[in-house]
């Protein structure tokens, strides 16, 4: 009875009369929904609001002359994906292939008469294909191959090397995208010109990477027996966790500029980065604390019995094991933070969501295209967040967290 396709259908869909009714009703609802969705996507919806302004959603009003900077950052990402493909396959391979296809399209389409450059004056002549921009897009598959090749060298193809490379590449990419007045040749890009998905990714990455050390410090402070340190950390963590990010961003706009001397003028982008990092550190601290609390007491006792000092025990025994425990939690927090970066609209930054809203509210042509814009943005976010949660589940299985 439970063998084969009919058996499977009987046990999983029609095990009782009520079950059968539920199945049929749901099947009808799904069929109608799917029909309407397909109909809408392919026939009713007008996707021009997306296709005519792809660069705005990807990187905002970033100056076209400087496109080589984010493109270099993208090449670095491709190298990392290539390494990941060789080392773990799975999702890294999927992303590497996706990025190769997307960048090849972006690089080749301009020569086939499809204009992908940012919208300009409607009367202006169509943009000539920019050879450097397109060539750098096309080069991404080379970057993936380079990464794949590098990872084949045994001393490079290790998780530790991968993470160190990732952090170094991340710092380089951030400087490339934002620019810095201290580095010749990398003029800072005006904050108002930086936007779209790049801004969301940048803010989330900065928030997570910078919040790890601060979070560890706060967690150690909270665990310490020194009352002053302890209550300072507890106070910070609980206050930040008790209020919505939106109020912190709001505060950053009004109060943070005042905490620096008047001579130092702080850009909104840095305000957002500082606020998001502080916000994220409070949650990171709680993760770290949880991870360290889960380390068996026998570990500490063994370390002490071997003659390690208290600080040595923490640095060499408890903390590494605690951090290992919380890798899935860090991925989970990255998902949350990535979603939360959409709140920077409150300080007037044009992230992906705000870019969409501005597009439909500021353009008479697109006033009726709200559904298309929001669904497109939702899908973009969904692709990133759900693949991150897939990674988190894989890591959880690989580490065997909770099963040891």
């Amino acid at each position, binding site marked *: 009875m439970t063998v084969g396709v009919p058996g499977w259908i009987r046990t999983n*869909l029609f095990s009782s009369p009520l079950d059968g009714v*539920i199945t049929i009703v749901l099947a009808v609802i799904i069929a109608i929904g799917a029909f309407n969705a397909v109909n809408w996507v392919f026939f009713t919806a007008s996707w021009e609001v997306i296709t005519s302004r792809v660069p705005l959603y990807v990187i905002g009003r970033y100056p076209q002359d400087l496109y080589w900077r984010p493109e270099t950052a993208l090449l670095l990402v491709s190298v990392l994906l290539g390494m990941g493909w060789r080392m773990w396959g799975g999702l890294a391979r999927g992303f590497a292939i996706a990025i190769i296809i997307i960048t090849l399209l972006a690089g080749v389409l301009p020569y086939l008469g499809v204009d992908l450059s940012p919208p300009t004056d409607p009367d202006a002549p169509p943009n000539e294909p920019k050879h450097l921009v397109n060539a750098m897009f096309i080069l991404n598959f080379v970057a993936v191959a380079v990464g794949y090749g590098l990872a084949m060298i045994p001393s490079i193809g290790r998780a530790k090397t991968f993470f160190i490379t990732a952090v170094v590449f991340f710092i380089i990419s951030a400087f490339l995208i934002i620019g810095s007045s201290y580095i010749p040749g990398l003029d800072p890009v005006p904050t108002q010109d930086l936007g779209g998905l790049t801004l969301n990714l940048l803010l989330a990455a900065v928030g997570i990477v910078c919040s790890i050390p601060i979070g560890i410090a706060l967690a150690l402070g909270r665990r310490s027996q020194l*009352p002053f340190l302890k209550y300072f950390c507890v106070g910070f963590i609980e206050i930040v966790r008790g*209020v919505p990010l939106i*109020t912190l961003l709001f505060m950053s706009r009004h109060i943070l500029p005042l905490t620096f001397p008047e001579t130092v003028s702080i850009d909104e982008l840095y305000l957002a980065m500082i606020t998001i990092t502080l916000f994220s550190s409070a949650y990171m601290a709680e993760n770290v604390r949880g991870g360290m609390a889960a380390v068996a007491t026998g570990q500490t006792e063994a370390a002490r019995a071997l003659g390690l000092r208290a600080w040595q025990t923490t640095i060499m025994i408890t903390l590494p094991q605690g951090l290992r425990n919380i890798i899935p939690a860090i991925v989970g927090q990255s998902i949350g933070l990535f979603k939360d970066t*959409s709140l920077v609209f409150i300080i007037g930054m044009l992230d992906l969501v705000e870019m969409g809203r501005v597009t439909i509210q500021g353009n008479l042509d697109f006033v009726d295209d*709200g559904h298309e814009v929001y669904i497109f943005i939702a899908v973009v976010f969904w692709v990133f967040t759900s693949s991150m949660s897939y990674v988190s589940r894989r890591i959880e299985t690989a580490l065997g967290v909770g099963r040891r």
Partner: protein
Amino acid sequence: MQNVLNPGGIPFWRNVVFIQWAVQIVSAIFVLVIVSGFIFNVANEIREREIPFGFSFLDDAAQIPIGESVIAYDPSQSYLYGFIVAALNTVKASVLGVILATLLGIVIGVARLSRNWLLSKLALVYIDTFRNIPLLIQLLFWFLIVLELPNVREGYVFFDSFYLNNSGFYLPWATPLGGFWPWMILTFAGIALGIGAYNYLQRREITTGKPSYPLIAAFVIFILLTVVGFVIFTPWEVVAPEPQGRFGRLQGGAKLTGSFFALLIGLVIYTSAFIAEIVRAGIQAVNRGQTEAARSLGLNTIASLRHVVFPQALRVVIPPMISQFLNLTKNSSLAAAIGYPDIVSVASTMTQIAPAISLIGMVMVTYLAMSLFYSLIGNIYNRVTKYAGVG
């Protein structure tokens, strides 16, 4: 007499007490220098740029309109009153949101565990979709949908009493009459008596072993008193909204404005996806052996669920659930994006005239109070349900 700093001949720099105090003092100085530097800068800037500061503005007339309120409000009232009105709007959205999200979340979570493959996968798709899309997009989307509804005269009508159109959702609602308070007193008496009867009968059942049906008795007492009170006092009547006049304005009943309706839908759907996962994990966390043991002790299905499975599942479910309630409350601050006058959106309007620093402080204190309230509930729950002899 032994030297305090040199017990047993250990040099003082290796004395634990000394090291701890030294670290503490150094870190205290470090933190104090940074914090006081910030405060000094802020104070300096406030003085130099003549930024308004202080709380004297709270008594002035706010002069800002607030679209909807739980208690009556008009712009001539003070800032403080306007702030309270906005805070109540936040409370209203979060209380309703918490109740509805819990109910929906439980349904989805149970559906996720259903033996029906289609139902279970559908629940999975629901959870994966709504959990992974930023709440802001969802709110903007629902608000767009609400705005695209037909206008009042052409809007949808269900059962002649529910009206859905682009100005909001209108539904029948109870209007209190004269006998409301006596009825309320009787209802509360019913709750108190019910709890008393439950405790008494439960104890009797345990000591004598005779089945005494404490839960049923408690409900009967409560319902009896409420119904009797209702018949005697007629405390309220349900009024359905009615179209009035040439423009079909709807009067009577309760109205959820478009932005509140969109906020509520968004918050409920988003949070219910998280709650569903918590519920699923909670039910799965109870070892199957527990049910089997309860059954072999002679408890029937309902009794084993009620006395064995649910209490253990609740213990896993309640703490993360409370943190989801807190998240929902904090997320309601996104109302600012769709024009619902919650505490953040009203405070940010007020900052155009009133001192921003004071207002932000007030908003943060309000949220902290709410989060303390939730953690208080969580702590009480943990204390009540703590296993004897564990942690």
